[in-house]
């Protein structure tokens, strides 16, 4: 099985295309830094207290608009609480590379998923298209092993991208914002009050707890690839679902039905660094719900792959 996964890795990383995709992820991170820098929130000039009081006033105004979405109001309330906390404790807000990297995790996971589904969406179907499936399946390895080695390789690629993205965020962020503050704490709002944790813990939590999103989108792309032998179909559908899933889960959060929308559950940081996106859901429910989706997808693609006549 290890050998089969090594084979799949070789087929992924010995292609120029893969490195272009990795380059896109790096570019994305760098753009995020420029974005942050140009929006001016990174460096607080003048008296930070006046700045924060202004921000609070703006946020209150935004939240009180009649057409504000629930998510916008929620977001504004949190920021107001955080800003107030800084004012109350006389602690100047600072953005360093570590807090930048923590904040990036949510965006990065979407970018990485979009790239990963391109690899996962082809990993099986490309073998059919190129005809290499005939050699692959006539070797002394069962189809089950080949199926799972390809699935594992797809996930490993996504995780590798996440690691690269995290490292690049810290390095480039550090160059621009400075590396200081690793010993500091990370502030977040939970249950209407400001809480804090160490920045290192927040860093690990934010990256690891976003992985279910990647897992779900990669599995979807892999399922379509293995069950329908079509790369285009698989990649297009998966890209759409990834974008739609992210947008819907973000914009519609707190609506009742989103409790049964899987993308409301894939961001597990909501149980540690935030409030649950839908009132009443628990970590256990989310994990089971995600696993259920993964299992159902494999129940569709695994039999199709293992039983198919290759003509």
């Amino acid at each position, binding site marked *: 099985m290890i050998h*089969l996964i090594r084979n799949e890795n070789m087929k992924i990383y*010995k292609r120029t295309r893969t490195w272009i995709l990795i380059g896109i992820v790096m570019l994305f991170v760098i753009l995020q830094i420029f974005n942050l820098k140009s929006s001016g929130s990174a460096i607080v000039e003048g008296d930070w207290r006046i700045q924060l009081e202004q921000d609070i006033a703006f946020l209150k105004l935004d939240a009180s608009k009649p057409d504000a979405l629930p998510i916008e109001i929620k977001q504004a309330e949190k920021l107001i609480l955080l800003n107030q906390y800084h004012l109350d404790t006389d602690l100047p807000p600072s953005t360093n590379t570590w807090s930048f990297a923590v904040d990036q995790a949510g965006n990065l996971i979407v970018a990485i998923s979009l790239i990963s589904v391109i690899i996962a969406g082809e990993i099986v179907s490309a073998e059919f298209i190129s005809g*290499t499936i005939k*050699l692959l399946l006539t*070797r*002394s390895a*069962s189809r089950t092993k080949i199926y799972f080695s390809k699935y594992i390789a797809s996930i490993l690629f996504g995780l590798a991208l996440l690691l690269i993205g995290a490292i690049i965020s810290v390095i480039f962020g550090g160059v621009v914002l400075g590396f200081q503050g690793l010993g500091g704490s990370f502030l977040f709002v939970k249950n209407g009050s400001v809480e804090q944790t160490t920045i290192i813990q927040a860093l690990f939590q934010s990256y690891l707890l976003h992985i279910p999103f990647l897992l779900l989108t990669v599995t979807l792309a892999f399922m379509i690839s293995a069950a329908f032998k079509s790369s285009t179909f698989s990649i297009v559908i998966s890209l759409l679902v990834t974008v739609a899933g992210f947008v819907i889960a973000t914009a519609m959060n707190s609506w009742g039905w989103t409790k049964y929308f899987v993308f409301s559950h894939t961001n597990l940081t909501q149980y540690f660094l935030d409030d649950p996106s839908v009132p009443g859901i628990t970590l256990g429910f989310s994990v089971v719900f995600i696993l259920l989706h993964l299992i159902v997808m494999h129940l569709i693609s695994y039999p199709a792959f293992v039983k198919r*006549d290759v*003509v």
Partner: protein
Amino acid sequence: MPVLQIDHLTKKIGRKTIVDGVSLNLNKGEIFGLLGPNGAGKTTTIRMIVGLMSKTAGKIIINGVDPQNDYEKAMSNIGVIVENPDLYKYLSGYDNLIHFSRMSKGVSEQRIKDVIALVGLEHSIHEKAGTYSLGMRQRLGLAVALVHRPSLLLLDEPTNGLDPAGIRELRAHLIHLARHEEVGIMISSHLMSEMELMCDRVAVLQQGKLIGIRDLTVAKQVSDVQVQFEVDRPDLAVQILQTLTVGQEIGRDEDRVILRIAKSQIPEFTQKLIEAGIQVYGVHTLKPTLEDTFLEMTEGEQQK
């Protein structure tokens, strides 16, 4: 023990029977041809043996192992070339070999080197397979099929698209493998002249059914041969030959005269023709071609 035993192998797709109760055995060191028109079930038969297609009924035993009981062990004994060898174009020839070697147990680096030398790809093995010519791809495909020392090699229409030099090269490899390494080889083709040059036995398939197996090693030893004399005056030659062969049927094709006699009679007959003042431009012996045998068999089947 035969390297391959097939017993009443059947494949049905929907109501259609593609392969209908085929039984045959393949021995060590034997080259076995599967012959038949397009759609006769040759490819389907091979794909069932190599596990690309499921079988509807029947039994396949590879080196004494039933793939249904131990798929990986059964498959470790076979090497496959299905049509044109499709390899990973973005990988080098060497990486392709590494890829497939990893899928088998106990392939040493030395073995990989040996196989590369065997197929003569030393100079281009580190180039991308996408840059290979069809002949080179075929060689790489053969290397991939042989690297784990299979005792059974299956080839489905391997000569498709190959030029005559490529075909001759492949034939030489296959004959070498069968004679010197005792590999059992099953090869499907619709090119009968090709099969005739290398196969020890051929099976003829028609509409999914096995309609006969012919041993070509026996056919090569028949006493009477067909002889063709190429002469300047065929009319006269026919008259002379008639007196020599009493009642033998003599065929004529422009300036060629064809008849069936014992091999030992050829010098005598030639001499008689020359003595009669006939210019003899050529004497050829024609063995009954596989094509004749094949047509005989399939026609016989159709009349039933």
